[in-house]
């Protein structure tokens, strides 16, 4: 039997179905073009994932730098060719708006995994070898932050740090890193745009500005809270159906599900995501070579960050930063990225018996 992570595949299919249902509800119970698009994109995504799954794993390893460089180039030129209201994040590909910052998450992890898996036992203890690693993370992070896209930028950053941490960064450097991050918070604050600051401040006190920036959080909490244990019923969520809920097709789709299916519904979603996250981690845990272990651990972190940031945001635990819920939110790039992750995971899983990739 092929080493296929069935739990992950089944979980993703269920999430796509839930996402389609949620979009149907968000479109006032009408089978709109966007509902169809969602299903169509999922199908295309699945094909891409299968394609990647059967690529030789060496190719992933070898092309990781080119992939990273390509993404960095896109991020660099995006201010000139990109589209988007307020923040320039997308490139218009004709059939979809492509957001390079989403696959940037994968690119950073692949290149980092390649770089770190080549370090010898002695090198791991030396601080100097982490300088290139920091650059691999920092360049795309900085470019995304300047778009500006605080949420995605931080997710790239944290995902990359996760890979470095797992690769065996000595404890003393971990503590040093944490200290550096804490010390640089005031510096980062100064670099933030006003609207980003406003979001953070609104997060700290959403009731202060109920009709302004706090509106989204307040309405989302009302929708979730009023859902109760079993929810108001499919297509019956008054907050969602009467448009009190902003961005209900994209970032706030979890709220819609929570309102219509209640605590039971929201727990189901979280459970499925954690099954996916843990089965990705499981691939790495079982694998013999470092590259596979680091990549899977990093990809698990990417999915985790998507889910955590999104749900924490709609429940008012984190500020509204604009993060989609993969496979459920309407939006092409996040879904494509998730299927890329699936493809890579399938590939890793099929090749998990190989010990040293660079040799073979």
């Amino acid at each position, binding site marked *: 039997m092929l080493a296929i992570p069935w739990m992950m595949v089944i979980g993703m299919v269920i999430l796509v179905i839930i996402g389609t249902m949620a979009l149907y509800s968000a479109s006032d119970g009408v089978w709109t073009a966007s509902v169809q698009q969602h299903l169509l994109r999922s199908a295309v995504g699945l094909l891409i994932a299968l394609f990647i799954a059967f690529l030789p794993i060496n190719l992933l390893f070898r092309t990781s730098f080119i992939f990273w460089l390509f993404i960095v180039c896109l991020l660099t030129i995006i201010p000139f060719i990109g589209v988007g209201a307020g923040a320039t994040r997308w490139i218009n590909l004709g059939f979809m708006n492509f957001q390079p910052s989403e696959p940037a998450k994968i690119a950073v992890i692949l290149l980092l995994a390649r770089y770190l898996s080549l370090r*010898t*036992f002695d090198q*791991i203890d030396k601080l100097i070898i982490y300088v290139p690693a920091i650059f691999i993370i920092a360049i795309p992070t900085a470019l995304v932050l300047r778009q500006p896209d605080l949420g995605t930028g931080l997710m790239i950053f944290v995902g990359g740090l*996760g890979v470095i*941490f*797992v*690769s*065996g960064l000595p404890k003393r450097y971990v503590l040093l890193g944490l200290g550096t991050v804490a010390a640089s918070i005031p510096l980062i604050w100064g670099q933030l745009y006003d609207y980003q600051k406003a979001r953070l401040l609104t997060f700290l006190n959403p009731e202060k500005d109920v009709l302004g920036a706090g509106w989204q959080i307040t*309405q989302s*909490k*009302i*929708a*979730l*809270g*009023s*859902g*109760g*244990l079993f929810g108001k019923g499919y297509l019956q969520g*008054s*907050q969602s159906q*009467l*448009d*009190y809920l902003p961005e209900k097709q994209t970032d706030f789709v979890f709220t819609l599900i*929570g309102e219509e299916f*209640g*605590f039971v519904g*929201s*727990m189901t979603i*979280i459970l499925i995501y*954690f099954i996916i*996250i*843990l089965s990705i*981690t499981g691939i*790495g*845990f079982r694998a013999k070579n*470092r590259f596979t*272990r*680091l990549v899977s*651990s990093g990809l*698990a*972190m990417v999915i*985790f960050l998507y889910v*955590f940031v999104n*749900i*924490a945001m709609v*429940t*008012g*635990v984190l500020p509204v930063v604009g993060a989609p819920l993969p496979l459920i939110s309407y939006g092409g790039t996040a879904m494509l990225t998730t299927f890329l992750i699936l493809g890579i995971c399938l590939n890793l899983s099929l090749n998990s018996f190989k010990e040293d990739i660079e040799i073979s």
Partner: protein
Amino acid sequence: MAKKRKEILEVSNQISRRMLLVGGMQIAFGLILVGRLYQLQILDNASYLKLSDKNQFDHRLVIAPRGRILDSKNRLLAGNSEVFELVVIPARTKDLKKLLFNIDGIIGLSREEINNIIETAKNQPDFLEIPIKSDLTQRELSHLAIRSAILEGVLFQKNFNRIYPQGKLLSHVTGYVSGITEKEVREDRQLQRLVGLKTGKSGLEKSLDISLRGTVGKQRIEVNSRGKPVRFISDRLPKQGKDYQLTIDIDIQSYAVHRLKLGNSQQVELAKSSVQEAINKNAELKAHINIGETMILKDANSKYVPPETGAVVLMDVHTGAIIAMASSPAYDPNLFAGRLTNRAWHNLNQHPRVPLLNRVIAGLYSPGSTFKMVVYAAALEAGVVSSDTSYSCKGFFEFGDRNFYCWQEKGHGVVNGRQAIAQSCDVYFYQIALKTGIDRIQNMAIRMGLGAMTDIGIPGEKLGIMPNRAWKKNNRGTVWTPGETVIAGIGQGFVLTTPIQLAVMTARLANGKKAVKASLLAQSVQSSENFLPLTINSSVLREIQRSMRSVISSARGTARKYELDGYGMAGKTGTVQVKRISKIERDEGIIDNIDRRWKDRDHALFVGYAPYDDPKYAISVIVEHGGSGSSMAAPIARDILKFALERQ
């Protein structure tokens, strides 16, 4: 090689440990989300559900049509007419200010009205209609309709307006409604949400307000986040207020009002130039014209005068049902339901003859000689006199160091009780009052219904004063003096009654058996048997009734000229001095009423009932500054009784 293997294994173990650590942290963060969702969806579910409902629904109250007021024959006294109201829905307009400016150009709006609408628009959801102008005239309606194409977001809405088809005839009974005042809102916050509600401000409209208002309907409007109504859900339909039937017969009422106002003068054509000229010169006439009066009179001196001021109450002697109650001058209650201008309000409020006062229940008058029945009955009951006891009247009664005069300067000679009533001899009553004492007179008066509230349901009734010794001590702090008993003997001094109390007294005297109580609402009319017995000896009552009859029937009766042919009337005249007559004036000869200033003339009173043998109606008439009771009030009473009896 072995070393390298070992190193690889060590790195591998380190990575595994780190992966476990990261996975554990991810699960821990996941549990934070689970906890947060448990808090939101399970623990705080109830409060969020409330907030969600508040988001979802806009509750609106729907005003119910007001209950009607009908006369005894089901004719409409107060009802609702459908009117067109101009409303604006701000959500459907692009520029509210400009729109209002356009409407101003068509039908005229005051700056204040415009500001109010703009202010209202700011404070409520923009899909709720705001009234611009209620009670549109036909003219305004057509002018607006023609230009409706340029008036975006404006629509005509049917609404109810309170109407009083009888106009001024019954204003003091029905009272009036008008918009909610700030004070009412302070007492009942809910009223604030009843945009356009009118509440009773006086009369029955006020006392029966809650019941007339009916039950407010409740409507839930499902609203989306942009304030757009999605669905209307009716939780409770509005229920029209209760209808009330009165004991009033509007035909008799109408006649009574007309007859009271006419007095002894002649109505003149208002359009005549000499009349118009007189109105322009005479502030008093003008004041009447300003409150909508159309009756101008020519008095015995050929002077143009306003209609008489006063009150009439006509009552069924068996049931106490009030058939007519007139108070003059009156006002048009329709003024308040529509748009009452400041000027119209000023004209009413500053009018010298107080048209807003309901004289029937709130006009306080000395009963004068109409009180003599009380004194005579008290004296007979106490046994201080019998029907045969006579006193000599030489025109005045010396008591202490003071002379108490009789209205008849030459005196009445020797008169017994019945003759004293018939001729209204004051000297006779000075003496028997003194003998009877104020406490027994007061006791008799109370039993006859004086000094007691009738509680017919109209707010603002006055109690009047029916004094005794205890009253004087409590209210004036001094001892009652015999001189005060003397003057009370002819219904003056402290004694104050209302026209309705005098009517109740007369009804009880005519009934002879029961302590009849007045009622105005058909539902509260009782049959005669249900009243308490009148605890006055029947032989005493019989003597009083005969005396009252002789006022009309005897050759020297004060109302001998005003027999009610075919029925027979009993009654008593009263003429009440409003200005003390000085010694000099008395020596020089008292000036005739007609030649005095209106304010200085005597009040004219008459109480009576008919038919004498089988009493049906009791009446009390008061004409303020009307001159003498016999020449002014008696013919009014006679004519109204006649009109009422002939309509049976």
